[in-house]
């Protein structure tokens, strides 16, 4: 693998599709990316840096495990009592002057937001980075309605101007390096003399967006947390683009998944301590904003919250999968994942990449799409280890694999699928000791011609090539354990 370089012509990959309905299965989507050494170098660099910072700051926190335990318990309490907390949030937000909307699915959420914007006569809207808006494919809907969505997070701006898609939950443009950013900004902002150091590039973004912040009267945000006790919304960010969007416009719309609620204000004492450390390897992110409804003379005077279900309530109903909804979107699992670190986020075909995406996306799609994602993991458990709310991602992956397999098995077209045929044969062989012994003997004879001197099989013909195309296979040993054991017993005096 090469280091980050100025290479001007990185291998081109097809435009990423971050819609699970249309995306390719993970192995097919990952293949061209694996050939893009520039992208892989960029992803490896960024995830290495964040992981090192995170590890250092988690190390210094002597109560880290107690914080994780508390965070997981708070999130579980929220999920178990979600209906009550949401109603409490709605009551308090409404009392504070906010307007609460409920959206059963992506389509309804888009309609609610478009109706509000039409009522405001909006032709432009400034946006804080929100994964949920990407989940509901909001930007294309806004554009189709003649409303220009302006992304204000630096990374999202890079992607929007570069006609690219986010590949990470927290650092969405980590697959793009400074030379590529310079090229995009120079082209789209008409800055021919732009330097390629991050300082100059950041300054260009500041100047580009300043006018928009001061003039566009409507904004869209996500929500990191909703506080039931006060009806307030919290946004956690670094750049200050969030504060601009939350403070300057006349009208603000916050789009939030129904699981984002916390019971009380003081629960932030746990969440804020774990979130920044896990997400960016900082003790605290530069800015956290919290507001309740409409505050006279301070900030937007019209405020809407859109509470989005879009599949979440069915995840809630399933005992093993429910923990998926504890997620606070820190992306620590992405940075730690050996699969994500090779492919980046685009291969996951959704704005939620990495391990959390591999469990969340198929569930949001009711397993009708993205069935390949639960298999995009080596089950090494690194994601579980770093998760600040203790989501046992491998456990959910295995549960989803079982469900996908059950679904596939029922398909009549799958009866003669070599994999399921092979599984049925294996099932019968493993069920009986003498059949198993015969199979071992046959296997040893059949595989011997393909086994090299180093004891490994590097290439098999026909169906076997499906395995050896991407990994080697250990040749069968000349003596099985059972043979060795019985020989040893005989030798004993």
């Amino acid at each position: 693998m090469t280091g980050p370089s100025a290479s001007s012509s990185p291998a081109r990959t097809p435009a990423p599709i971050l819609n699970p309905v249309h995306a390719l299965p993970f192995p097919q989507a990952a293949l061209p990316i694996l050939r893009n050494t520039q992208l892989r170098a960029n992803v490896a660099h960024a995830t290495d840096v964040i992981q090192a910072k995170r590890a250092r700051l988690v190390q210094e926190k002597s109560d880290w495990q107690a914080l994780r335990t508390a965070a997981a318990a708070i999130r579980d309490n929220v999920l178990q009592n979600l209906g009550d907390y949401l109603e409490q949030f709605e009551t308090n937000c409404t009392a504070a002057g906010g307007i609460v909307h409920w959206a059963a699915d992506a389509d309804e959420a888009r309609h609610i937001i478009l109706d509000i914007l039409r009522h405001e006569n909006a032709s432009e809207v400034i946006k804080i980075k929100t994964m949920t808006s990407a989940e509901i494919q909001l930007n294309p809907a806004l554009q189709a309605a003649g409303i220009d969505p302006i992304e204000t997070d630096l990374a999202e701006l890079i992607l929007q101007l570069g006609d690219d898609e986010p590949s990470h939950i927290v650092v969405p443009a980590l697959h793009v390096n400074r030379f590529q950013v310079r090229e995009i900004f120079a082209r789209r902002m008409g800055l021919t003399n732009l330097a390629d150091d991050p300082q100059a590039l950041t300054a260009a973004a500041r100047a580009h967006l300043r006018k928009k912040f001061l003039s566009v009267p409507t904004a869209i945000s996500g929500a990191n947390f909703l506080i039931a006790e006060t009806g307030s919304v919290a946004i956690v960010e670094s750049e200050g683009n969030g504060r601009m969007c939350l403070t300057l416009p006349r009208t603000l719309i916050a789009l939030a998944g129904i699981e984002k609620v916390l019971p009380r204000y003081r629960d932030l004492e746990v969440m804020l301590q774990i979130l920044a450390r896990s997400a960016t390897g900082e003790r605290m992110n530069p800015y956290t904003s919290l507001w309740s409804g409409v505050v006279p003379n301070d900030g937007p005077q019209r405020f809407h919250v859109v509470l989005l279900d879009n599949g979440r309530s069915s995840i809630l109903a399933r005992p093993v999968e429910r923990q998926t909804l504890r997620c606070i979107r820190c992306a620590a699992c992405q940075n730690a994942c050996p699969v994500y670190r090779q492919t980046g986020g685009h291969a996951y075909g959704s704005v939620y990449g990495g391990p959390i995406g591999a469990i969340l996306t198929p569930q949001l799609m009711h397993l009708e799409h993205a069935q390949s994602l639960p298999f995009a993991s080596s089950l090494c458990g690194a994601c579980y280890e770093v998760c600040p709310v203790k989501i046992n991602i491998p456990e959910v992956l295995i549960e989803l694999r079982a469900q996908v397999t059950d679904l596939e098995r029922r398909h009549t077209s799958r009866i003669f699928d070599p994999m399921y045929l092979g599984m049925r044969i294996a099932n019968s062989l493993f069920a009986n000791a003498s059949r198993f012994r015969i199979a071992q003997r046959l296997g040893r004879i059949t595989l011997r011609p393909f086994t090299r001197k180093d004891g490994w099989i590097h290439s098999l013909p026909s169906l076997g090539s499906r395995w050896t195309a991407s990994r080697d296979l250990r040749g069968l040993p000349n003596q099985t354990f059972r043979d060795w054991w019985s020989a040893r017993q005989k030798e004993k005096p």
Partner: protein
Amino acid sequence: MSATSSRQSILARIRAATAGPASLPYADLPRDYTHHGALPTDAVLHLLTDRLREYDAEVSECSPANLVATIADRLRASGRHKFVAPPDLPADWLVPGFDWAIDNNLTHDQIELCDGVLTAAFAAVADSGTIVLHHSATEGRRVLTLLPDWHLCILRSSQIVETLPEYFARCTQPPALATFISGPSATADIEMTRIKGVHGPRFLNVILVRDDLESVPHRNQAGSHDRL
């Protein structure tokens, strides 16, 4: 539109999904993390100073009697002239010799034209170097500490706690507005290189007022040796 029916159907699905046995009640949730810090006041102030400087903030320390002189000193050192201030700041903080705009509903454009802003704060958390604003009339509306590029924030040592849970313990009544500031606006979006000052103020200045020293006169002043 079927807004009401969506509300009902979502809540019905949630109720059905969570109908199982109740889990731990909220009051019994495990909270075995550190609530109270163990450091003495001087060490807490040192920690806060270190953390703020790690974020490239400038930190000075002074006695209550020297506060106005220290404010004047910081304003002069900034090389800026036009400052904005929230309406209820003590009058003597608005040091003569500078152009002061008082925020009695100034427009965004008027605030944007100011070079800097002077405010008080609600609290600060040493462990993470966090300044908390509740946007009272001495802390300013949110826009006030957002548009000007330079922020001078006055913190009294009695407002400084060591851990984040200590701040929340002080909030008997949750605020309607809060902003947690941990260093100047920053991004690492391009190759994880930390760049200061994307959209928020690029320069954060903090004055720590030692209001603890007068009530505890025997305490030594070890904390003030490295003042700026």
